[in-house]
């Protein structure tokens, strides 16, 4: 039965204490940047944090514009720590999201659009001239600030630097004219999205895996643990596996394939590659390869659920189990049996990881970087009294945690590590809730009526400067 439409005549019953003030939520990450209105359940806009940079200095944003072009590079405005590196581009990309994509087109105010200027001869006015006053400088008051009506809530990694935080509030206040701003850490929001104020957040994202203890909505700084064992590391594992396996698997991204014919499993590909008239940048190719690897991760890779580690007798068992077929963009396909477990095993067992060739020290996993070790180290950073509570409130989020069997394995490892304690893992069932966990938490937080007192207002910013963000957003 269809739900009765909400009557427009009555106020919605505020069962969750919501009081929406049309706030915006922006959640930048290494792989994707998400933005939307607070109070909604999914971000309206999700674009890659990778952007195209043309030779003539233009930056273009969005998934759909990343197509092969001449002298076209793909860059990321963030570094692998999920901390903004290129603030100019970050400002542009965020503005692109928040203003261009989220806000409706607004007509230029009649006083400024020049149509009413009668003294003009040809009726065509250069915009720049309108905005310039007599002194030739741009009058700030005439420039309407794009976000003057919406408070903005931004997320950040728990290890974000103070400088980056100050820069963030500066941009939103100075450039966009936000009336209010707040900066919140992703694990806190992920815990909120799971409906918990106290939780141990296991966030396995694209560039970083982190484990953070949250107590009453506040990050416990001593518990923050992170390692690179996340999506990109897993991609490198897959690359390494493809390189070592027999026959070696060539990575041909989709955009290079012009024509292909179906072939038998294990047979070499019968493909005609597209010939571009210009060289393809490595960064672009890597970006496209990453898409292919993501697909492989989503459909083939699986985490060994236990019992026990994967290495040893379990490997033989896995070999006897039915595998999965994956067809490359070039048409070659292959059955993956035990390998699909092995690529993810390095997350749990540092000895099982593929050695990364040429990756140097970066790809190698140390003992302390595996997920059980992260959790253990994180728990050691909090008070003893809190640990059982945290263990019974584990929130798993991040898109890499969507690997098949991840939660089962995590549960097994934790039960083995803390045999006497109750362990309860909370992982959202919906894919999107796991992918956008921190954004959803931000959406909840920013639409709460009790949150209004937290916002850093423009006045407070004007009085205290950007340093206020360190004082307030603890």
């Amino acid at each position, binding site marked *: 039965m269809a739900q009765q439409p909400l009557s427009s005549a009555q106020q919605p019953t505020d069962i969750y204490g919501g009081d929406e003030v049309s706030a915006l939520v922006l959640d930048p990450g290494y792989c994707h940047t998400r933005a939307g209105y607070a109070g909604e359940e999914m971000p309206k806009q999700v674009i890659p944090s990778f952007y195209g940079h043309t030779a003539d200095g233009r930056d273009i944003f969005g998934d759909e514009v990343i197509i092969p072009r001449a002298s076209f590079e793909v860059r990321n405005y963030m570094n692998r720590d999920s901390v903004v590196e290129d603030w100019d581009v970050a400002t542009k990309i965020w503005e692109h999201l928040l203003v261009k994509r989220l806000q409706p087109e607004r007509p230029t105010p009649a006083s400024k659009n020049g149509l009413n200027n009668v003294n003009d001869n040809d009726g065509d006015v250069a915009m720049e001239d309108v905005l310039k006053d007599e002194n030739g400088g741009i009058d700030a008051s005439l420039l309407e600030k794009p976000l003057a009506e919406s408070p903005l809530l931004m997320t950040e990694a728990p290890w974000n630097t103070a400088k980056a935080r100050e820069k963030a509030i500066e941009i939103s206040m100075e450039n966009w004219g936000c009336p*209010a701003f707040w900066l919140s850490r992703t694990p806190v929001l992920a815990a909120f999205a799971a409906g918990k104020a106290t939780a141990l957040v296991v966030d396995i994202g694209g560039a970083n895996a982190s484990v953070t203890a949250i*107590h009453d909505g506040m990050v416990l700084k001593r518990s923050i643990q992170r390692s690179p064992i996340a999506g990109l590391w897993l991609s490198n594992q897959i690359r390494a596996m493809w390189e070592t396996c027999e026959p070696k698997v060539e990575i041909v991204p989709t955009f290079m394939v012009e024509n292909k014919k179906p072939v038998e499993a294990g047979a070499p590909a019968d493909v005609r590659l597209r010939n571009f008239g210009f060289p393809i940048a490595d960064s672009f190719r890597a970006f496209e390869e990453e898409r292919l690897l993501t697909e492989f991760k989503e459909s083939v890779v699986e985490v060994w659920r236990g019992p026990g580690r994967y290495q040893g007798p379990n490997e033989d068992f896995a070999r006897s189990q039915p595998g999965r077929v994956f067809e490359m963009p070039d048409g070659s396909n292959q059955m993956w049996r035990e390998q699909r477990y092995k690529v993810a095993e390095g997350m749990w067992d540092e000895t099982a990881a593929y050695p990364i060739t040429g990756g140097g020290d970066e790809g190698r996993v140390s003992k302390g970087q595996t997920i059980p070790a992260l959790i253990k180290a994180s728990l050691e950073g909090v*008070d003893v009294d809190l640990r*059982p509570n945290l263990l019974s409130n584990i929130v798993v989020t991040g898109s890499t945690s969507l690997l098949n069997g991840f939660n089962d394995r995590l549960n097994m490892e934790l039960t083995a590590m803390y045999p006497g304690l109750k362990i309860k893992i909370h992982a959202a069932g919906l894919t999107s809730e796991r992918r956008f966990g921190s954004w959803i938490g931000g959406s909840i937080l920013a639409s709460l009526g009790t949150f*209004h*007192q937290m916002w850093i207002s423009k006045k*407070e910013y004007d009085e205290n400067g950007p340093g206020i963000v360190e004082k307030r957003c603890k």
Partner: protein
Amino acid sequence: MTSHDLRDVLNIPSDASAGPRPTKKQKTSAPRPNLKGLAREVQNLGGDNPIAIVPEVSIFKKRRVASRKPAARWELRAFTNSARADDGALLLRHWRRKTDDGCAPHGDSTLQDGEAQPGNGTSLDGEQKQQQSKAEVVEDSAYAKYNVQVQVPQYSEDQYHANLQNSDWTKEETDYLLGLVKEFDLRWTVIWDRYEFSPRVAGPNGDAATSTAVVPASSRPRTMEDLKARYYEVAAKMMAVQKAVQYMTGPEFQLYEMMQNFNPAQETARKEFALNRMARSKDEAREEESLLLEIKRILARTERFNEERRELYNRLDYPATDTDINSFKSSAGLQSLLQNLMNLDKSKKRKSIMAGPGDGVSPQTAVPGSAVSETGPGGGGGGHHRRESIAASASGNHRDSIAGTPATPVEPPPSATTGVGASKKKSSGGAQQVVERRKLTEQEEQIYGVTRHERLNPSGPTFRYEKINKLYSHKSGQQQQRITNALLELDIPPRLAMPTAAVTAQFEKLWSAVTALVDLRKVSDRLDSDIKVEEAKKAERDKVRAAKQSASGGGDGDLVPSVEKDNASERPPSRAGPAPGGEEKVAAGDGTAGGAAVAASVDSPTVIKEEQAGDKDKLGVASAAASRPGSSGAHKRSASVLSTTSDKSSKRQKK
């Protein structure tokens, strides 16, 4: 089941943007169709799937009734939040139903909004107006009231120096700690987590040595217990400073006590324990679990054992000899004691009856008939009930026996557990229910003052002091006066202060002795007067005889002084009772009196006869007085007896 789920199951990659989920969600949240003509319970049997046999009645969406009323108006209303620290600088706006009544300014503002939208030429002053009206009416957020903060102790510089000095903590660090406590609302885990106190490096004049010496000392990591201990110390002291301990209310004082008694060492030890508990291995955990189970089992068993043992002890009742008997010294205490003893007696008797027909292993199983099934599982509770019922019936019997009738079976109280069994027992063994008092030993009888009488006074029970009063009332007023005088001489009040049995007995003895004494005096007085009369007669006769002798000449003129002497020696002892020398004098006087009497009998037989009779009287009384346990010999006179007994009784009275 949506295509998404199918994809999930088959592990087919799904496009994330395709979102069939929401529709599914809606479906589940929609209320289930209410099927008519089928019990709800039956419907529920089907679980989530509707029952197939019931034809689904298609319910069409009702046509919306078009209301004539105009559409509801909503407005984007600005509001502030008074919980914010920036005094209303932040104006946020949310959608609210537009109210026509009362809130004219709101309507005004939106109207101006509407005006301002199309043409911006007039918007400048319109906006100003709008600002003004808004400033007047902006409402406060409904959520501002949820802004609560913890109370953190405040102290001034002087107060710190007076009360809060601590060698381990500088004032700056204490300030820092209290600031964190306030900021994080006493969430100690967060406070400890964020605690990063870096003492200011000593000022420009401070030399490097001291600064380096100070820094490592105070920058060593503080444990949570350190922080808590310091905070509680400060809070407790400031609490006491603001309000003296004796004026605190109950909860305040409790808080104060708790903060004062905070023991960081104990906390640390507890946390270590917790840590060890967490760090144990799987085997250890399992072992511990099994041990815990074992302990539980053992405890349960001991509990049962104890229960049984207590039951057993209750059966083996024994007189509690070591208890204080003071509670039984009053008449009410005696009464209850008597009742207790009877109850014990009774229960013993009954138990023996109960144990009689059974095998004697467990009295409970020996209870015949339905009582078994009722008291058996009850255990201790059943026993208790029985005891109660016994007590009740015993008290009934007790009352009967006091009334003097032979014990009769009393109706058992309506006790659920023993009703049937008890009545059965009553019917079977009513004859054995004769009340049998417990024999008191001699000593006990003495202690409790139990006496036995062949039959009771016809007048019924009396008070002891009444008995004494009765003694008085038999005497004439003169005698009463004399007796009182004699008692007063002995320092004994005529009315006893504490008429215990022993005291009254002694007092009676004393009293009878005093009466005897008073009687003797009466007799002696009479004798004196008689003697005087006789002497007068004799003198008369002597005169006559002398007159005759003068004519004839007589020889027994020396008799007169001896008689006189006798009289003289006889009078003093009766007058001065307690005098120590009196005894011998009396004895001597007695002898001389005897001798005098013998001598007197020679020539005046009538006088001698009278004298002998008087002496005999005297001796009889004296011997009666001397035959009492306190006296030593028959020859002793009443005065000595009096003195000794009075000493004793006075001593007793003092006791």
